[in-house]
């Protein structure tokens, strides 16, 4: 039983280390923006003012 647990945790850690970061594609046209169009980092913020 103990062995199974060790293997299970091992697989879990291995999986996490090699997991690709999930990336979403967000359409950008027609939204207020600031900063250079060709900036290496694009941040989309969903906002509720209230």
């Amino acid at each position, binding site marked *: 039983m103990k062995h199974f647990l060790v293997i299970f945790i091992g697989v879990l850690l291995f999986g996490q280390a090699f997991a690709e*970061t999930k990336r979403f594609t967000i359409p950008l046209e027609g939204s207020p923006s600031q900063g250079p169009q060709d*900036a290496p980092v694009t941040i989309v913020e969903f906002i509720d003012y209230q």
Partner: protein
Amino acid sequence: MEKIVATYKKNVRLLIKFYPYKYRDFARISAEAALAASDQGKFWEMHHLLLKKSPDLDRDRLVAYAKGLGLDVEKFKSALDSHKNAGIIDRDLKLALDLDLYNTPTFFINGRKIVGNVPYDYLRKIVQEELNAVKP
């Protein structure tokens, strides 16, 4: 987020999408106010003001804020009352629902999703990771 933009000026582009929560009275009208200010070239001024003044966002106050920013108040009111920019808000809302967003703010940093008012250092860490990935 203001601090991130100021820190990474040349390397960061920030875009705003609207996700007004439907059960809050002034969520939608304040998004309309931001876009009405945008029509007059003052989106960011209004955006920051709304964040600062929240939750004081009823129509009268919004009009007062517009006046304070030197906007054409009649044009501003007419944009609010005719829901001139409703299409943009509806489009963003649909996108937010398609993405299963359940909280604001939600950020996507080069597509990486970050939910809620996370500490500045955490945002900075993600931005820095993304920068390091393109500029070794």
